[in-house]
């Protein structure tokens, strides 16, 4: 593994370059050979279910964990050898709020600003500026433990950008937030990218990766199983997906077999016992599929045809849906 250090050329365009990153916990390969090439100035998304290895990968790249194998350059610096240089240009907002809950928002940001080298007066100014920018002005003098989930997330991100980092790691920035707070966080991320920061974020939400990330790496069981823009990933799966909602769940097997035989397509059965999902590349075949079902007396309550969602991408890449995988993970724990 070590000799690959020489094979990893430093590139000015890349914020992160990694080759063969591995982290092993006991017998488990939490991260199992991850290669990355993340261009500067974009939002890059890690998408994966619980336990996929997202946090572990991010913590390695943010100098918090030592990889068991592999090499990486972060902002052109050697991970492991030049950690101080890396630390002065990155910032991490962890999966769980990492702020002193007993202190107020203002005190937290002022402390961070002082630790970044601001004088006491400048630190206070920067803290107020950020509180205002993040819509937390009125909560400035309240202890963070009295904040709502969304406010906590914002103060946590604010603490990470007291000095605007060149590279920001956001580990599940919107988990547990309502749609409104989630949109606020998305706005913040877009603004940061607008000001030149590269953002690497992890998410379990397919929609989030779709909306926010310029490129996506789908991670499962410590490995990247697909990488590309959201449309590339969707295209790789096939041009379209037909979702059929049946009136009677007992028709499901018959409907599936019928579609497989007459339209020559692959059929998935998702968690909903009354729905059938089929990959169809030619939109003209959709009408035929529907009429085949009608001819056999299989009643349909609803159907939709569209490009595959990332959920379906995940399904076709792993053979099970992202949510299903999450459940399976919990059972094995």
């Amino acid at each position: 593994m070590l000799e690959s250090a020489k094979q990893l050329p430093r590139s000015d365009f890349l914020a992160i370059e990694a080759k063969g990153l591995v982290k092993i916990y006991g017998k488990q390969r939490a991260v199992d050979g991850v290669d990355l090439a993340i261009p500067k100035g974009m939002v890059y998304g890690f998408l994966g279910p619980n336990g996929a290895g997202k946090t572990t990968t991010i913590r390695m790249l943010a100098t918090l964990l030592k990889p068991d194998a592999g090499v990486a350059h972060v902002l052109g610096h050697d991970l492991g050898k030049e950690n101080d240089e890396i630390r002065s240009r990155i910032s991490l907002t962890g999966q769980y709020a990492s702020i002193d809950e007993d202190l107020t928002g203002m005190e937290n940001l002022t402390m961070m600003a002082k630790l970044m080298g601001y004088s006491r007066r400048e630190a206070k100014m920067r803290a107020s500026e950020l509180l205002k920018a993040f819509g937390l002005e009125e909560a400035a003098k309240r202890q963070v433990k009295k904040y709502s989930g969304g406010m906590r997330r914002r103060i946590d991100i604010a603490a990470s950008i007291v000095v605007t980092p060149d590279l920001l790691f956001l580990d599940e920035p919107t988990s547990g937030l309502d749609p409104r707070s989630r949109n606020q966080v998305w706005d913040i991320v877009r603004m940061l990218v607008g000001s030149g920061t590269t953002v690497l974020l992890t998410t379990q939400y397919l929609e989030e990766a779709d909306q926010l990330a310029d490129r996506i790496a789908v991670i499962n069981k410590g490995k990247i199983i697909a990488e590309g823009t959201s449309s590339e990933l969707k295209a790789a799966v096939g041009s379209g997906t037909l979702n059929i909602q049946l009136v009677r769940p007992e028709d499901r097997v018959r409907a599936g077999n019928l579609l497989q035989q007459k339209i020559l397509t692959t059929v998935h059965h998702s968690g909903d016992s009354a729905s059938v999902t089929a990959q169809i590349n030619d939109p003209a075949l959709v009408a035929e599929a529907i009429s085949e079902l009608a001819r056999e007396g299989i009643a349909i309550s609803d159907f939709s045809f569209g490009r595959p969602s990332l959920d379906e991408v995940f399904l076709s890449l792993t053979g099970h849906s992202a949510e299903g995988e999450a459940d399976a993970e919990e059972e094995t724990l």
Partner: protein
Amino acid sequence: MTDYIEQDASRTVEFPMSETIASSKRPARPTVLATIGAFATRALLRIKHVPEQMFDVTLFPVIFLLMFTYLFGGAIAGSTAEYLQFLLPGILVMTVSQITMYTGIDLNNDIRKGIFDRFRTLPIWLPAALIGALLVDVIRYSIASIIMIGLGLLLGFRPEGGFIGVMGALVLILIFSFSLSWIWTALGLIVRSEKSLMMLSFLVMMPLTFISNVFVDPSTLPSWLQGFVSINPISILATAVRGFMHGTVTAEQIIWVLVVSVILTAIFAPFTMYLYRNKE
């Protein structure tokens, strides 16, 4: 708990332009002193916001002193006033030594809450985080000591060493406690939970404080126990503190305390820093 919900919903948060979010400049790294100052400020603010954490340095000493003076005073020394002259220095040492473990508990909490990770990704001189916190702890130890000595004086404690003697004793206690704290910071980095750290410190401190000369004159003990008592750091400190307070301290007694403190710091401070840097 409802106020933030109302506030948050009543107003559309309009984030200003990205220029405000982006910092205008990248300041130079803070000096070591400024970094220690920032961490010390944090510890002081925590005392302001969570005054309950001062129970250990205010209530403990009072309860311990009253309890031991009146419970054992009559039985062990015949009279409480007489016993207090012997007991107060020892019990002061015991109390302050025991509250040093809260340093480790605070650090342990920081790690579990992820604040530690944030500090570790900063380009700062890392020991500052611990030193800043420890300096504020030294203030806490002083408060505990002053409360105990004050109460002791009210109860009839009459140090023959006078003000100078008491101050000398206090300085020795603070030096020793600062050194002892490094054990707890190291353990705070090793053990998983606050609970196990409490347990562990109890296991260490109970024998150290009780099998010492804090409560009784060791000459009444079996000889094999006397050996342990005489090398027990708590006894060494208690002897010197007693000496200072009663004006009978010898250079040898002081030097032993300093030697013990230096040894504790030399072992556990670097060990703590090693763990702090390499914690995963």
